[in-house]
């Protein structure tokens, strides 16, 4: 090889290096980068789809298992009529007590408060004082029995029965009932 040829070869080698650099940096590199990004997106979406399918199947199973809880929840919610409790609870109690031969009963609201538990955020606790100036023990017992059995969200917290001085057959009764009422 003569000098001229060596020079041309060196030049050619340099050109080749430049060509390879341009090829890998500006042509193949971005293309591979784009492909990798696409593949990452595909992988991500495939994971999401797989997780979603599992979640959908879980939700379907949950729907089946939660059926009884849903029915019970609806039943408990139906125990709270529309409107402010102060508007419907005292008349309801009066009617109930009258049906048990207990007249002149008065119901007044003592306090109401929200629950601390987050699962009961839609429910409130009401404390009522039910004052019965005249009630005989048997009627009272029957009334309390029915009250406890038909109102699962009601519980009696305090009960005071005193003999009425004017009529030995009658007692003066005051009880505090706590009710759990759905906020509407």
């Amino acid at each position, binding site marked *: 090889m003569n000098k001229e040829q060596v020079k041309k070869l060196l030049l050619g080698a340099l050109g080749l290096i430049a060509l390879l650099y341009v090829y890998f940096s500006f042509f193949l590199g971005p293309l591979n980068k784009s492909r990798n990004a696409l593949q990452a997106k595909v992988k991500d979406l495939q994971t999401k789809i797989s997780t979603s399918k599992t979640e959908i199947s879980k939700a379907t199973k949950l729907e089946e298992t939660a059926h009884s809880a*849903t029915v019970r929840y609806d039943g408990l919610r139906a125990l709270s009529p529309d409107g402010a409790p102060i508007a419907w609870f005292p008349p309801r109690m009066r009617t109930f007590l009258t049906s048990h031969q207990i007249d002149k009963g008065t119901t007044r609201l003592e306090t109401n408060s929200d629950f601390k538990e987050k699962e009961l955020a839609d429910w409130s606790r009401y404390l009522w004082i039910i004052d019965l100036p005249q009630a005989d023990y048997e009627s009272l017992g029957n009334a309390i029995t029915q009250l406890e059995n038909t109102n699962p969200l009601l519980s009696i917290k305090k009960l*005071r029965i005193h003999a009425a001085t004017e009529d030995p057959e009658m007692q003066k009764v005051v009880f505090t009932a706590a009710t759990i009422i759905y906020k509407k």
Partner: protein
Amino acid sequence: MPLQLNLLHEEILQQRQRQRDPLKLSLYAAIGLGALLILNYLWTGYRVLESKSRLNSIQAEWGKIEPKVTEAQKRSDELNGIISTTNALDGYIENRFYWAPLLEKVAHCVTPNIQITALEGIVEDDKGLVTVTLDGVAGGREPRGVAEDFRQMLLEQVGKEQPTVKVEFKTLEDLDTTVAVGGNNVTTAHFVVTVGMEPFPKAATPAPTEHKSRPKKEES
């Protein structure tokens, strides 16, 4: 062997030199390499297009699934909320104290020579305790004995369902007054009995059961 004379020796040498020209050879090599690079580029491009097409089909599938999964998640949250709320409410319902059976038992224990003048009961939710105070008068030859019989009977009756019950005298004192019981005048004693029980011990979680209070029998 015949003698051969190469008269074109120089020309042939030049031709051979031209054929072995490294520049020319490297040019061929460069063209080959370039062709390979172009093929590789096209192949990679094809794979990019394939990935794009796959991504498009997966995105279309995700587009169909996404609303369903969002709805499923929402429904799951709602159902989990309902389940936990129902469980919490059931906890309250199961831990109610039923007064009617207790009143019935008190009525059973009151004999003709006992008069209950006051009954006060309170449920302490935070401690899980129920305390009942009974204020009354016992009459008889031995009024203190009558009051003690009442206490024991109450302990026995209430203890059937509440093993943790404690029935104790808070006060027991003789009175000066006499009352007529069965046509006889008898002495009296005033007593205050406290009934303490722990219907829902915190250590043991009660299993959910049908807990209904029975209607009170006619008895005074």
